[in-house]
């Protein structure tokens, strides 16, 4: 066998894993009813593919081969297991595998499997941070090490969090199912929130500006795309995908060559990803036409107004302020109010916005963007001394180098 065939086999395996890993794992979890066993069995199958494919060539149906091999690996693992109810499980599983072996048709039921898996991983009976971790681990295939690094916790903590979540799924009987119609709206909300948290985990500046963070944004978009595809009649799923695409379209323009943050107003708009913007706006239009507005659609609409402005001066701030009012009525929060105030500052001037911002001082006392926004308003009003105090507070609260550098630059530029 030539080296080229071997390289080709490994490339084929990498692309199958990239595209179909979650699908294969989802169907294994359904059949086996056990996250750990499913994951171990898939690992076994991948290892086997890595040794067999380069020699024997890539099988005609690579995903089918992995499915079957992983199921057999699961059976082997159960046989090796030294537990009292081993025989029972083995018999049950063998019957189950036989049933599935005959029909390795992978189109219709598998889409359902992935949707089931999303709902299980995002079940509200799991702690929010466990939902995010489990989703990244199971659906995105990130390693525990990677997830721990992104969320700034020790690897052992993250490993324990994932183990505990899987154990709760099993012991508390968290279903592996798409929820019934009565529960669907609330549960969908939980899924959307997890995907958005994955995205902000990548987007929000943290101390580690490594490549993993950008990967998280891509993973979140991938999940949102999958959800939108599996729930085409759910406008909030389309709204979330639109929101992520629109926010992510600015990724390259958000930092300059030296890694410094570039504010929206100062960004080079030619560096925005206009393909992503177009797709985001198209998705948003489809969602809005369903006439069931929700917070993700409104946030996507806000992002779309920014995206549609050819220059920063062209931004329709009146529209944005109106959308924030709408968002506040759907999901009231001081952070939404802060954003609305910033929009109002651009319509009616910083003097009109400052009282609105000051009213949020108590709930947002340790929220860095609050102090940064307040500092900016005071600077624009020529109240340099108060602006300086607010910049200093914002700098104290900042956890990101690029962000801190930006604030320090603004502070240094004040003439007191």
């Amino acid at each position, binding site marked *: 066998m030539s080296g080229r065939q071997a390289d080709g086999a490994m490339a084929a395996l990498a692309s199958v894993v990239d595209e179909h890993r979650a699908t294969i794992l989802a169907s294994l979890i359904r059949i086996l009813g056990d996250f750990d066993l499913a994951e171990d069995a898939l690992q076994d199958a991948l290892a086997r593919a890595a040794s067999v494919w380069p020699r024997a060539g890539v099988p005609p149906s690579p995903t089918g081969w992995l499915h079957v091999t992983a199921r057999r690996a699961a059976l082997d693992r159960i046989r090796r297991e030294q537990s009292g109810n081993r025989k029972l499980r083995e018999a049950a599983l063998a019957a189950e595998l036989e049933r599935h072996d005959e029909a390795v048709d992978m189109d219709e039921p598998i889409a359902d499997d992935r949707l089931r898996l999303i709902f299980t991983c995002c*079940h509200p*009976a799991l702690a929010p941070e466990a939902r995010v971790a489990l989703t990244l681990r199971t659906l995105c295939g990130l390693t525990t090490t990677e997830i721990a690094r992104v969320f700034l916790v020790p690897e052992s903590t993250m490993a324990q969090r994932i183990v505990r979540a899987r154990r709760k799924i099993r012991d508390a*009987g968290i*279903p592996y*199912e798409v929820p019934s119609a009565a*529960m669907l709206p609330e549960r969908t909300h939980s899924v959307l929130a997890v995907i958005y948290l994955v995205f902000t985990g990548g987007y929000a500046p943290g101390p580690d500006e490594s490549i993993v963070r950008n990967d998280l944004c891509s993973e979140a978009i991938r999940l949102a795309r999958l959800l939108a595809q599996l729930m085409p009649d759910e406008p909030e799923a389309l709204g979330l995908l639109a929101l992520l695409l629109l926010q992510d379209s600015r990724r390259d323009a958000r930092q300059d060559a030296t890694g410094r943050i570039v504010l929206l107003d100062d960004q080079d708009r030619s560096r925005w990803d206009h393909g992503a913007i177009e797709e985001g706006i198209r998705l948003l239009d489809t969602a809005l036409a369903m006439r069931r507005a929700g917070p993700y659609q409104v946030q996507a609409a806000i992002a779309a107004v920014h995206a549609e402005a050819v220059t920063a001066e062209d931004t329709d701030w009146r529209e944005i302020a109106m959308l924030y009012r709408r968002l506040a009525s759907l999901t009231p929060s001081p952070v939404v109010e802060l954003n609305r105030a910033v929009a109002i500052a651009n319509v009616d001037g910083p003097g009109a916005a400052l009282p609105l911002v000051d009213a949020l001082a108590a709930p947002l006392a340790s929220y860095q963007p609050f102090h940064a926004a307040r500092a900016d308003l005071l600077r624009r009003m020529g109240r340099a001394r108060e602006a300086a105090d607010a910049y200093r507070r914002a700098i104290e609260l900042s956890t990101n180098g690029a962000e801190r550098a930006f604030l320090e630059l603004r502070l240094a530029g004040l003439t007191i």
Partner: protein
Amino acid sequence: MRYALLINTDEATEPQQGTQAANDRMEVYAALTQEMAGAGRLKAGERLHPTSTATTVRVREGKELITDGPFAETREQLAGFYLVDCKDLDEAISYAKRIPAAATASVEVRPVWEMG
């Protein structure tokens, strides 16, 4: 799977026995109990006397320690339970959320440890 639906209430704000509010609530409980029994889900269920009647027993180094009152002073107290046999956690939750205490205090859903 079997689940215990542990019903917690805030005894301080509970409606007084014999009042209209207490009677109304009893009717909601009775209807839910009947419905769960009719669906073949209900295995057991009891209402408990308030924690003022509780006695806590501990044994330390072989010596019994009997104290008056519940195991811990908390804002909510265990007032009763249902034992239900459900398809999965979601079905158990769908009953738990209809227990009146869920709206005023809380209901804890705990899977039963199946022996053997």
